[in-house]
């Protein structure tokens, strides 16, 4: 009993919330923000780099996202699954850029290991890589910090029609159920003595394909069960009751929008519009303005 108390207390302080891609402590300051504010970070961080070619700014944005994730106490170890992707994307992009460069007249060239490199083409690839990474990390941060329920609250707050919100919530839930079923099937196979580690890559691929048959069968059966349950409860695609009145939305009452949300959302919208105007009207944030590029070109002359 004496030992049980501290254990229980530790468990309380370490309570974690499972998000779409990882886990975040319930005590994370991030949860002070309304789900719609967090949803707008997805749109803002996932799109703003589209208008910014300067790699230094995109690298800064990535650093800011990591600071934000650190502040939000996100378990960064979950993000390791993206490490191979960041490396292979770089290898792919630079291989393509070196093998099939853009060769416009006036481009600066240099020779290395018998290969001709086109500086402008190479630097464009460098800038595109960081722009891509900034947008990807901006997207991943959202899925690392939010649950299905919060996504649902966000789109309901934005007044999306019932059918859309219902569809998205069921789709995200169904992805979870599909994974759960897959885990059950794999465990059943292991219980019967299947050792996946001893299988050749081709056999593992075959096994993966064969999982699909029972998984789809389960999902199809579930379609009938869920639609029957919804019908029995009187749900319609419009979300209205028989008398034409909208169903009350209980979940939204649990998430009030506060002043901090309005400030953060306004800041993101103003920044976004400013970036677009600066880029489209004045050509700011173009790759030619990159300080590193200007410095490297100055070495040529």
């Amino acid at each position: 009993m004496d030992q049980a108390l501290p254990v229980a207390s530790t468990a309380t302080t370490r309570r974690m919330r499972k998000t779409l891609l990882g886990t975040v402590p319930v005590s994370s300051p991030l949860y002070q923000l309304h789900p719609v504010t967090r949803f707008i970070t997805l749109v803002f961080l996932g799109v703003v780099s589209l208008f910014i070619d300067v790699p230094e700014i995109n690298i800064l944005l990535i650093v800011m996202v990591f600071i934000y994730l650190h502040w939000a106490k996100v378990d960064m170890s979950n993000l390791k699954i993206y490490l191979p992707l960041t490396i292979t994307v770089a290898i792919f992009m630079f291989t393509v850029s070196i093998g099939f460069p853009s060769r416009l007249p006036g481009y600066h060239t240099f020779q290395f290991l018998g290969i001709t490199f086109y500086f402008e083409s190479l630097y464009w690839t460098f800038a595109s890589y960081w722009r891509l990474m900034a947008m990807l990390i901006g997207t991943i941060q959202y899925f690392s910090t939010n649950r299905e329920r919060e996504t649902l609250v966000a789109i309901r707050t934005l007044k999306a029609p019932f059918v859309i919100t219902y569809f998205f919530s069921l789709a995200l839930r169904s992805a979870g159920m599909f994974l759960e079923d897959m885990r059950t099937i794999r465990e059943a196979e292991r219980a019967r003595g299947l050792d996946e580690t001893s299988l050749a890559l081709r056999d593992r691929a075959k096994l993966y394909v064969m999982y699909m048959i029972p998984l789809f069968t389960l999902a199809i059966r579930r379609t009938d069960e869920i639609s029957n349950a919804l019908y029995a409860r009187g749900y319609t695609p419009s979300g209205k009751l028989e008398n034409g009145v909208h169903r009350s939305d209980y979940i939204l009452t649990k998430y009030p929008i506060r002043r901090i949300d309005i400030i953060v959302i306004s800041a993101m919208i103003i920044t976004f519009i400013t970036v677009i105007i600066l880029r489209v009207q004045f050509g700011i944030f173009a790759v030619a303005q990159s300080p590193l590029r200007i410095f490297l070109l100055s070495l040529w002359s």
Partner: protein
Amino acid sequence: MAAQATSVWTLEEGEVRKPGIVHIVALALFTGIGIVVGTFGSLAIPIGFVSAFWPGQAIQAVGSVWYGMWGGIAAFVFPLISNAMSGSAPLPVSLAYIPGNFVQGIAAGWVFRQFKLDPSLKTAKDWLGFTLVGILAANAFGAAWGTTVLRIFGLITPDAHLVAWVGWFLGNSVASWVLGVLLLKFISPLVVKTKAFCKGYWA
């Protein structure tokens, strides 16, 4: 055999089919499955935005065969989420992929309905229709659209367009054909008996 194949798509006497909540549920569940398969596919061979192995196209194709336009909608919705979760394409690129993904999905649904092919792939005509239109033509268009999007976004150089297209087309076609054939062959007999199966495009 021919009469049996036709009967899958032909309305029974007095049969009325309307879109309903069952189709929305089927769309949602199919999108969920697509999210998982698409994410796994992208993470299995992480080349990033160039899709060198993506079994998700099989889900797109069989979805439109079974659920018509609902499958076509799922075909462009689930990649938006699976691309984001796998980190293979950012939101603007995924949005630009929408027409390509829609065609990749609906092509198979169109050929099966147009030529009254059996979803359980019983005759050579069924196999040919699925392979030529549902897989090869659909992926040829999808890869062309996808690589054009990458070029517009500056992610590949113009000179690399053809190479990227070939890689995308071959990688997607092989994975999708294998998975698609298995799904159609083994699951279609079950699906055609359900309420959600669409004889037309919407119901």
